[in-house]
Structures are given as structure tokens and as C-alpha cells.
């Protein structure tokens, strides 16, 4: 049963059918679907299923071909001079007569020039083979493909990515609750000692090397105990990274700061809210909402803070207003009835029964994209290793040859190419004939693909 499954997976036809299927399915998906619908195709069973089958098939093939290539390598390396001589006698071609001691040495040199990297003279025979690289590159390449697919598969499941808003001057712990949008894979584990992400400063327009980098936060990544792990300006192509955590700047908005003040003038709570520039409402900035808690810890008031944007020559600009103004609306958190509203400038307050809500200031907040994906480093490594292995596999031709001199001084050569190439066995015979100065019979030699 297992053997039959393996036989099925090893079939070169299956590999081709699956590759054709996956290419066609991808092509149809790009034409038929849009947006999220489109990306859903690539995680649907009819795409992932065949991809997994291809993974299994590639692993099965790689296994078989590792065995075959390793056996070939060993077989030729362990070839005894007598066996080699017999092989040349039985299967080889006559390429001339030996002209004394140096003939075999010259033949070895000629073979090396033809790509038989390891050509050694043993008594009256030369055993020559392409390098181990040439033999093993293709199976190694297929193993690397298998590893790559597995790393991608698990990487996707063990990855988390999300967007969080960090007010400039503030920080947020890297926990699920800090995120506005979060997409964590099934295998993702939130760290027990979460990192902290701080944004000490921010520039709306940062220019370096003559290139406008756009809105640029300065981000610090802190360990749970507060030591700085990484810090820097974050703009496109200049992410902040630390151990698989990668931070990009996604957008920015405003961050109004409000305080809850008792009738006696004591500040009992301060909050920095997050407000986005609303692309649909040119007049206002989308309201930020929060629930204020009194000293006893009971939720009592729901507050909405709506900022008026800065306008320059009649157009809204995405900047902190010069003289900020906010509409504060308080409602009962339980029944939703309005408790009061006021339009205030900086320092102004909305008076309520329990005390007042004060509009302290407004600054920027940076929307930060955080990706936690430990697989990226392994992925980059596998990318390059796979490319290197495929290059070696495609640019070399595994091959071996034995040259033997019999008692009468006749030189015979047996050549085998494990894959067709520009250099043919006939070229090998010609080269040997010319170093030996002989004129043996014409021959074809063996070429095969596996």
C-alpha cells in the first residue's frame, strides 16, 4: 500500500499534471475574482490540496533521486581497477593505442577539461566523474523546494500581523488588545513577556537622500523590562526589525488628550485617543470614542471627541490644527441618553454632574503595522540556497567515464552521461583520440535521462 502510494507520488507525469493544474488555477483566479475573493482561491481546498500533493510528490521524488545519485556517486568512487577495466573492455570504444607511460595521465587531463572533474589514474585505468555537486544538486534542489513549501505553510500559520495606533510620546504593549486590526495564525503564540512599542517622535514629511519618505515615526522597540532592543525612523523600505518582529509605518492621524477632573480640580484619569482623518467627511475628523471610568471603577460616561481639521486655502490638510477645537459629547454609557455637549478649545472643558472632561491637547498618532513572523529568516536562506542548487543542477551535467589500456596497449573508453548535454560521448572519443594520436572506431556511448 505504502509502496504503491510512493510509486504514484514518484511519477514524473504526476508532477507535470499538478504543475499545469496549479498554473492554470492561479491564472483563472486572477481573471475571475477580485480582491478578497481572489485571495480566497489560494487558500481553498482545490488549490491547497493539489499543492500539498505536489509537496508530497516532490518529497517522494527527492528521496528516490537522492538514493539514486548517492549510489552512483559511491559506485563510481568505489570502482576497483579490475571492474573498471572490465567495463571499458565490454562496453567501451576503442580510441587508439597508448603511447607510453604518459598516455593515461594525458587522458585524465583531457577528461577533466571535458567536465569530468574528478579524474584519477589507478594503474592501467582512469576513472573519471563529474563533481559530487553535479550529481547531488538536483535532489538537493528538490529537497530545498520541499523545505521552502513547508516553511511557507507553517510560517503562515505561526504568523501574526496587525495594525496598532500609538500616540506620539506614548507606547503600547505588543498584546492582542493593543491592536485595532489583528490577524493571528492558528499556531501563533502571544509572547508571555510582551515587547513594548514606543513612538517618541514623528515627522509628517521626512526627507532623506533627496527622497520624500512620507509620514515617518521614530519607533523604539522595548523589552518587557524596558531596555531598548531596536530603534529608528520607520519609512518605506526601512522597517524596524528585531527577531522576526517587523515594524512598518502604515498611516497616521491625530491623538487628542483628555482628562477627567473632579469638581475639586483633581485629575482622576487621562487618556490619549486616536482619531483618523476621515476621507469621506472633508469637514471633520472621525470621532474618537472612549468610556470614562470614575474613581470607583464603574463605567459611567461614554465620551465622543470630534476634532475640527486644519484648513489651508479652503482645503483640509492632514496636520495638527494650529488652534485646535473639539466637539465633546457625553452620553450615559448604559442607556445612551445625552448628558451634555460642548465645543471647546485647548484647555476647555465639558461640565458634567460628576466633574468635568477637559480637552488638554492634540498631537499625532502613528499607525504601526507589526508583523511577527519567525519564518522569514529561514525563508530568505532557503530562497538563496534553492536558487544556487538549481543553477548548479541546470549548468552541470552529471557524467562518468572509464578509460583502460589492455595488454596490447589498446585504449578503450566507456562514457555515460546521466543527462543529455552539449558535450556528447562522441566529443569525448574525439578528445581522447586526439591526445592519443590514434584513430579508433567511431562510437556513440550512452546518454540517458532518469
Amino acid at each position, binding site marked *: 500500500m505504502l509502496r504503491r502510494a510512493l510509486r504514484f507520488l514518484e511519477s*514524473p*507525469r504526476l*508532477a*507535470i499534471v499538478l*504543475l*499545469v493544474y*496549479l*498554473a492554470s488555477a*492561479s*491564472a483563472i*483566479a*486572477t481573471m475571475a475574482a477580485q480582491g478578497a475573493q*481572489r*485571495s480566497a482561491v*489560494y487558500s481553498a481546498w482545490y488549490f491547497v490540496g493539489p499543492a500539498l500533493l505536489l509537496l508530497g510528490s516532490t518529497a517522494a521524488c527527492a528521496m528516490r533521486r537522492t538514493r539514486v545519485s548517492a549510489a552512483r556517486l559511491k559506485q563510481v568512487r568505489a570502482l576497483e581497477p579490475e571492474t573498471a577495466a572490465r567495463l571499458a573492455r565490454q562496453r567501451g570504444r576503442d580510441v587508439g593505442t597508448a603511447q607510453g607511460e604518459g598516455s593515461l595521465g594525458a587522458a585524465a587531463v583531457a577528461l577533466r577539461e571535458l567536465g569530468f572533474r574528478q579524474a584519477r589514474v589507478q594503474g592501467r585505468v582512469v576513472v573519471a566523474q563529474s563533481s559530487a555537486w553535479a550529481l547531488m544538486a538536483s535532489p538537493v534542489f528538490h529537497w530545498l523546494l520541499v523545505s521552502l513549501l513547508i516553511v511557507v505553510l507553517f510560517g503562515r500559520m505561526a504568523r501574526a*500581523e496587525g495594525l496598532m495606533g500609538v500616540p506620539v510620546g506614548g507606547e503600547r504593549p505588543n498584546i492582542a488588545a493593543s491592536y485595532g486590526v489583528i490577524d493571528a495564525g492558528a499556531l501563533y503564540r502571544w509572547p508571555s513577556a510582551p515587547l513594548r512599542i514606543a513612538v517618541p517622535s514623528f515627522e509628517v514629511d521626512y526627507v532623506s*537622500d533627496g*527622497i*520624500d*519618505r*512620507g509620514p515617518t515615526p521614530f519607533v523604539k522597540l522595548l523589552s518587557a523590562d524596558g531596555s531598548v532592543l531596536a530603534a529608528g525612523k520607520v*519609512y*518605506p*523600505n526601512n*522597517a524596524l526589525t528585531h527577531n522576526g518582529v*517587523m515594524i*512598518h509605518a502604515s498611516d497616521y492621524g491625530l491623538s487628542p488628550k483628555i482628562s477627567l477632573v473632579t469638581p475639586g480640580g483633581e485629575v482622576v484619569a487621562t487618556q490619549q485617543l486616536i482619531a483618523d482623518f476621515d476621507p469621506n467627511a472633508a469637514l471633520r475628523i472621525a470621532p474618537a470614542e472612549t468610556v470614562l471610568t470614575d474613581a470607583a471603577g464603574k463605567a459611567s460616561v461614554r465620551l465622543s471627541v470630534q476634532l475640527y481639521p486644519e484648513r489651508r486655502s479652503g482645503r483640509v490638510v492632514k496636520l495638527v490644527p494650529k488652534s485646535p477645537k473639539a466637539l465633546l459629547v457625553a452620553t450615559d454609557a448604559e442607556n445612551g441618553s445625552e448628558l451634555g455637549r460642548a465645543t471647546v478649545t485647548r484647555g476647555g472643558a465639558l461640565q458634567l454632574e460628576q466633574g468635568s472632561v477637559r480637552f488638554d491637547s492634540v498631537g499625532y498618532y502613528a499607525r504601526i*503595522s507589526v*508583523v511577527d513572523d519567525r519564518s*522569514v529568516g529561514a*525563508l*530568505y536562506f532557503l*530562497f*538563496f540556497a*534553492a*536558487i544556487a542548487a*538549481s*543553477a548548479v543542477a*541546470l*549548468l552541470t551535467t552529471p557524467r562518468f567515464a572509464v578509460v583502460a589500456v589492455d595488454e596490447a596497449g589498446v585504449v578503450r573508453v566507456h562514457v555515460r552521461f546521466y*543527462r*543529455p*548535454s*552539449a558535450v*556528447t560521448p562522441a566529443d569525448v572519443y574525439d578528445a581522447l583520440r586526439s591526445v592519443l594520436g590514434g584513430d579508433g572506431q567511431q562510437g556513440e556511448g550512452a546518454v540517458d*535521462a*532518469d
Partner: protein
Amino acid sequence: MQTEVLMMWLAVSAYALSAILFVFGAVFRAEKLLSIGLWTAAAGLVPHIAGIALRWQAVGHGPFLGFYEVVSSYAFLAVIALVALALWRRPLQVLGVGVVPVALLMLGGAMLAPRSPLEISAKLASWWLTIHVAFAKLSYTSFIAAAALGLVFIIRERRKEGSDSGLLAKLPSQAVLDDVSFRLVGVGFVFLSIMIVAGAIWANEAWGRYWAWDPIETWSLISWIVYAIYLHLRLTMGWRGRKAATYAVIALPVMVFTLIGVPVVYNSIHGAYLTGY
């Protein structure tokens, strides 16, 4: 700008003259005309590279932003590939009959497209972009050359044994054409892999995701699979000669669609290199 345009028109003129020589040379089987056509095209490369260099200096980035820069650079590479193949095996210069008129149309079309420079934006300012673009060009050139050799192979195969006319008879043997076409696909495949990987790394550095099934990403993967299938058919199913040559020719439009068709057909963040931002 003035000198650049002048250089480009000089190149267009040289390619136009060369195209005429090639067509006449092929029609009248006059090898001399083909040779002159080849050298005329090679001469056109000089003002062409000068034009590209002036543009590079003026806009501060290589030829990869906008239709004018991209298509003109491919015309340049096509002629370079022709000259290289002809230097390697002189009779291959007959490929100029197909290559030079196409290069002429490409460069002519590029000259008529808007030439206003596109700025390097912060998103594009990355070393990975340079690698990505360089290997894209190398891989497309390899696949074009492989398809061209495949075409020659097929044309010659169609004529009966021994009836090779003067021009075709001088080409390298069918076995050599077959092998070189395969090697070119192999090299193109490695270059294409590097291009895709550089693109994925760049996307990760720029956006924090290495793969998002964007139409151009998807189509470059499709082209990669299309050529992986070629390699398998050849190495595991023993496809040689006419079958392999036909495949190399038919695969090329997939590649060209990825480069030129996708940015036009799909509204993708990625198509900007042709259609502008």
C-alpha cells in the same frame, strides 16, 4: 533631453535601415546584405546606449519607470542578444529578420509614448528593486533568445533533410540549437527565480508581506511554473527537438503577457512601472 532624443532617433534610423537590409537579404538570399544589416543594427546600439545613459543621468534612476524607458531598454537587449548570438555563430545572424523589425517597432513605439520622467518614490528606493529589475531583464532576454532558437529549429525541421537553402545550411547543427535553447531556458529560469525572490524580499521590506497574490506576482509565478514544466518535460519525459522547441516558442507569450499585459489588464499597485503612478 535634446541630445537624448537625438540619440534615440539615430538608433531608430539605424534599426530601420538594418531591418530593410535584413528583409532584402532574406528575400534575395544575399548573405552580404544580412551581414551589413547586422553591423548596422550593432552600430545603432551605440546611440541607443548613449540615449539610455543620458536619460539615466537626467532622471537619476535606471531604465525601469514608464513605457518609454522599459520598452526602449528591451529593444536594446533584443538587439544585443542578436549581436551576441551572431558573434557566437555567424549564420545565426539570420534571426535579425525577426528581431530587428520587432526592436524597431518597440523603440519607435517607445519614442511616441509620453517621455516625462517618473520620480523614484520612497516605496521604490531599494537595492532589491535594482536586483529585481536587472534579473527581470536578463531572464526575459534569455527566454526570448531560447524561443528564437526554437523557431529556427522548427523552420529548419520543416524543410526536408538535405534541402537546407544557403542561409539555413550554415547554421549550427540542430542538436546544438536544441541544446543551446535548453541552456537558455535553464539560465532564464534561474534569473527568473532571482527576480521573483528579490521582488518578494523587496515587498517584505516595503510592506511587511512577501507574497500577496497580486496579479503580477501571480503571473510571474505562473511563468516560473511554465518554464519548470518545460524543464521537467525535457529532463524527465525526454522531450527534445521539435517538441521542446515548440514549447519554448509557445511559452514566450505567457512571459510577455506577465510583463506587458498584466499591468494593462489588471489595475494593480504593481503595474506602475509601465503605466505610471
